[in-house]
């Protein structure tokens, strides 16, 4: 029987199947960070259990790490990071902590180190684990009880979700990038549209994206309600992986390739749900409300509220229906996060800001996704482009995406952000977030208000 990619990944990891029980799935890689793991390690200790496979477990610090050498995390953040260090040392888990040249946001460093590979199951106590599906892995976020379960047994009991295909076909118009594809999908299906499903992204647009672009699309899967999103591995995937630190080499690489090439949805395999998007009709998107589904094209206006949720969002965002999106002025710009802080994102943003200057009333921040991204960006002089334009150039971490470290919005401040969530208070209590792509964020920083990248001087061609 023809199978979907998700079915192939699922079925090849079932350790045990029994009627009336969830499948017991083997987990090939478990990524750990400081925020959702301490209680799991404590649970193991209390029960007298050990970490079963420290060699399939990798840790980093990202959520509350300081992104400036001038700042120190508060006491309680320091205790949390120290706890991760102690837990990793006791269990023999590799930790890319403060000071490591590989430290970074957990979803940036997995692919970057070649740890994330096609055909794998991968989990992490973080909802944006869906990111890793871009390489053809079954990757999803879990809570702390499940983190403990994986640490103890390297498995998870899971019920098989349904299959959903999101097909994006056609050539992306100029100025429209992977982030706009993600926001376009979510504004179509809604924030609960993917609930109970594993999503496979298909179609010529997805095939045409770089691996980094696919990571952005898969990252935002959870914002559409599905735990996992994936793209079948292809030459783009293999070219990205080859030569990376943990990628197989030599004969093992060839063996792996033979296996990976079979990881595609078979002709005629059925999906429970299918959504089709015409790439040619996508525009640069901007969120106006307090969830990522509340997004419109940059040429649009703040909509009339259609529900109580919309009304609440408008009140929180201090916006009036009918306001042109491009008339919304800004106090802050954030370029960063597991959605959009890879080298390609920084290059796209740097192209826009080169030779220009950040608007005098805007404070703008660039936070590379990892110390490796930071080093690579510096090697090609991107740091200078940003600094000369008046951006702050920071060290790697989650930073203002969720504001667990000192990088937060003040109450009432309005920010164009390349991150993934515009929930109330997400970037700081009372802060107002507009989700955009890296080039749109860069252009907004220069203009001082939201602006259509396609009409930005020097960008049209």
């Amino acid at each position, binding site marked *: 029987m023809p199978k979907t990619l998700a079915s192939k990944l699922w079925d090849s990891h079932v350790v045990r199947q029994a009627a009336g029980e969830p499948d017991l799935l083997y987990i090939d890689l478990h990524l750990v960070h400081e925020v959702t793991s301490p209680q799991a390690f404590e649970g193991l200790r209390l029960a007298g259990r050990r970490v079963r496979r420290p060699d399939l477990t990798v840790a980093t610090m990202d959520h509350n790490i300081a992104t400036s050498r001038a700042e120190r995390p508060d006491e309680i953040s320091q205790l949390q990071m120290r706890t991760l260090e102690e837990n990793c040392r006791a269990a023999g888990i590799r930790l890319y902590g403060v000071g490591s040249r590989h430290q970074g946001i957990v979803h940036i460093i997995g692919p970057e180190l070649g740890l994330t590979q096609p055909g794998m199951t991968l989990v992490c106590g973080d909802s944006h684990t869906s990111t890793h599906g871009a390489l053809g892995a079954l990757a999803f976020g879990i809570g702390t009880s499940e983190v403990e379960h994986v640490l103890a047994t390297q498995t998870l009991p899971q019920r098989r979700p349904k299959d959903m295909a999101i097909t994006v076909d056609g050539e992306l118009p100029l100025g429209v990038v992977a982030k706009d594809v993600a926001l376009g999908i979510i504004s179509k299906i809604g924030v609960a549209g993917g609930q109970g499903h594993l999503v496979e992204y298909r179609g010529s647009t997805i095939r045409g994206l770089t691996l980094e672009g696919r990571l952005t699309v898969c990252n935002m899967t959870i914002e559409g309600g599905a735990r996992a999103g994936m793209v079948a591995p292809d030459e783009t995937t293999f070219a990205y992986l080859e030569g990376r630190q943990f990628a197989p080499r030599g004969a093992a690489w060839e063996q792996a390739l033979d296996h990976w090439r079979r990881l595609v949805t078979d002709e005629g395999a059925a999906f429970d749900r299918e959504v089709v998007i015409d790439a040619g009709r996508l525009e640069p998107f901007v969120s106006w409300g307090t969830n990522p589904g509340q997004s419109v094209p940059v040429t649009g206006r703040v909509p009339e509220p259609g529900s109580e949720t919309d009304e609440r969002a408008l009140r929180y965002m201090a916006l009036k229906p009918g306001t042109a999106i491009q008339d919304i002025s800004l106090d802050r710009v954030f370029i960063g996060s597991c959605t959009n802080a890879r080298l390609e994102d920084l290059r796209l943003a740097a192209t826009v800001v080169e030779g220009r200057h950040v608007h005098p009333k805007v404070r703008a921040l660039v936070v590379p996704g990892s110390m490796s991204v930071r080093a690579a960006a510096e090697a090609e002089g991107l740091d200078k482009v940003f600094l000369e334009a008046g951006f702050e150039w920071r060290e790697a971490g989650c930073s203002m995406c*969720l504001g667990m470290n000192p990088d937060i919005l003040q109450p009432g401040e309005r920010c164009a952000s390349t991150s993934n969530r515009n929930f109330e208070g997400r970037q700081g209590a009372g802060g107002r977030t507009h989700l955009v792509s890296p080039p749109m964020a860069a252009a907004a920083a220069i203009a001082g208000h939201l602006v259509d990248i396609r009409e930005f001087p020097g960008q049209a061609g």
Partner: protein
Amino acid sequence: MTPFVKHSGRVAPLDKADVDTDQIIPKQFLKRIERSGFGEFLFFDWRKDPDFVLNRPEYQGASILVTGPNFGCGSSREHAPWAIQDYGFRAVIAPSFSDIFRTNCLKIGLLPVQLPEATVRELMRADEVTVDLDRLVVSADGVEHRFEIDEFSRVNIMEGLDEIGLTERREDAITAFESTRPDWMPTVKGMR
């Protein structure tokens, strides 16, 4: 896990859709390394409003939260169900839940009960509701509503079972599976 068999309690109606886990427990409280004590920070920002449901005298002591669709969307933070449970809630009733949030609830014995939107609306107006996991019914004002939950979770929650312990009984199957894993898959040895 806290076992749950049957519980009767007062309802707190939170009539909002898409309540995300950032609202349930904001990020500044995720820095703690303990599993308890999150209840006082539940809905931290919304509780600044004196009219917020949890601040109103008629809902003091409520132990069943009744709310809108897609409850618990966003972050995977288990701190969200910890906070709801620590505050004193035993069950959450909604037309739908986000996938990760629902799983997190099931792991700690905070019962997520999914019912049709019209039924949830009725329950928001009830004073006291009984949730019976043994019979799979929610009752209020003499009317019973059936709900569904998978049998594995139902038994685990009723008995307060340790799921890790259950999986540990499958050690032979896990070891056998491990012996079939391809050699090229990455392993990472030791601290750095």
